[in-house]
């Protein structure tokens, strides 16, 4: 604990002055026979009041500030339960395998990075989480979904989750969410790969556009914007054959990704079949 108690708090200094004044007033305005008693009562009440307010509004808040990390955990049942569980695990499980400790260390470091990113309004959704997260993302959209879909990297639409995702998009379009999806192809010969899905989506009320990669400014991955308050970028993790998506509610990131989507949509064509 780091505390910064001063010998006399501001409350106490003011309290002493007020108490002294009150005692003088009590002495001067009291009847002769009650002067001593009233002055004593005023002084005692003043001192108790002064000490109580000093403790309550100066010392305890400082103490509370030092305990803020504990307060954060106390206010979230999940966190406090987790911490108590960990404290129990180590007590019951000694010695723990060093490789187990290594995995925990890697995981905690990764989580720490993710929590720090969340403090900046950013979060990562990894490959395994993407199907469920994508469904949730489309389900919670209220007004607008704008996205690119790079055909070539992703085989998303062919997978079982892709079919469910397509249905979720159709449901969103039915509840009047404006959806604009721009399919991007590395070469013109690839367009037929996605022709069926593009036509199907266009028929369901989704604004389908398409473009060739060379017609656009360099893109590092698919971009999505939900209701103008959440943006995400899908990317491949180099050397690991895995992908993840970086989402953000950070104003700067939203502005940047919306600009990217504006440019993609400007340089793409309507798919009408």
């Amino acid at each position, binding site marked *: 604990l780091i505390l910064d108690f001063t010998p006399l708090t501001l409350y106490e200094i003011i309290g002493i002055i007020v108490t002294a004044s009150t005692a003088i007033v009590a002495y001067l305005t009291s009847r002769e026979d009650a002067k001593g008693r009233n002055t004593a009562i005023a002084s005692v009440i003043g001192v108790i009041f002064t000490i109580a307010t000093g403790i309550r509004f100066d010392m305890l808040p400082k103490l509370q500030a030092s305990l803020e*990390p504990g307060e954060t955990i106390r206010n979230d049942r999940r966190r406090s339960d987790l911490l108590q569980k960990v404290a129990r695990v180590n007590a019951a499980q000694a010695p723990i395998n060093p490789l187990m400790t290594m995995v925990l260390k890697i995981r905690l470091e990764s989580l720490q990075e993710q929590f720090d990113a*969340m403090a900046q309004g950013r979060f990562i959704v990894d490959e395994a989480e993407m199907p469920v997260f994508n469904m949730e993302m489309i389900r919670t959209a209220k007004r607008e979904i704008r996205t690119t879909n790079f055909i070539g990297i992703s085989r998303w639409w062919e997978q079982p989750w892709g079919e469910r995702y397509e249905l979720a998009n159709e449901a969103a379009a039915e509840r009047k969410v404006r959806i604009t999806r721009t399919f991007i192809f590395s070469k013109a010969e690839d367009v037929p790969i996605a022709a069926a899905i593009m036509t199907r989506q266009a028929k369901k009320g989704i604004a389908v556009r398409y473009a060739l990669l060379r017609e656009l400014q360099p893109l590092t991955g698919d971009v999505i914007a939900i209701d103008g308050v959440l943006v995400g970028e899908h990317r491949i993790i180099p050397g690991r054959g895995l992908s993840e998506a970086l989402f953000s*509610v950070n104003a700067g990131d939203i502005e940047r990704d919306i600009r990217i989507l504006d440019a993609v949509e400007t340089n793409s064509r309507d798919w009408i079949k």
Partner: protein
Amino acid sequence: MVGPFTVVEIVGALAIVCLILFAILRSDASERRGNAVFAGLTGVILTILLSIRFYLLPTMEEDLRLQNLGRGNADAIQLFDMLSRAPVRVKHPLMDYILRMRLSSLDEYYDRAIQGRFMVDQGELPIFLLAMIRSATKSIAATSYAQPASWWDQPWGKVYERENEEAVKRHVSVVRTFIFANEAELNSIRPLLGQEVTAGIAVRYAFVTNLHGNLVNGLVCIDDGLAGELHLTPEKGIKEAEFFTRPIDIGNIRQRIERVQADALILEAPAKGRVP
């Protein structure tokens, strides 16, 4: 807390107002002001003391208890630090969803840890498996049923094979049994297996059709302290692995490995100058 005040203080403030009104209404005219001031001041003092005693100190005591929970426990200290720094109010429900998922996954990790088990996911496997082989001091017994493309062709897959060879050099007994769907699959990596035999690794092979279903998997046993089972996707890609540290679980995995080894054939060392 409601703003800067506690619930006790808010209730106390209402009681004080009532007390002052009561003092004004029930006192003689000459004592009205004095009694009201006295009632107000004692009410305020009492409220503050009650608030400190029954709200502030107990919550601070709980905060302090949580803060001290990890004393002498490095994991708990690290976790406390992380949990206290994790965002409390996130700006978007989907971000909140991910935050809850992260906390849940950590919760699951500790639930398993209590039982001496832990999961290593796909992204963590490369680093983990290398460290696992390096940690072996006496023996490594393993069965492999991963798709060749997801194992041998990965850069870290090659490093993994090299680490096995290094283990042999430090006199660790390495016995690896490879499981194949058919002869063609075996032949596709026969040269690589031959290299392992040449490096001193005892290599065996078996076919899926000859094995019981629960043996067709990736299993590993390191010394007497760690055993693991690889979880594969339906396409035989690597999904995650579960490891065990309790002797009973290690014994179980070891038995399964031995059953595969019993049904497997030994791969002979390739003759010099001939591609195996």
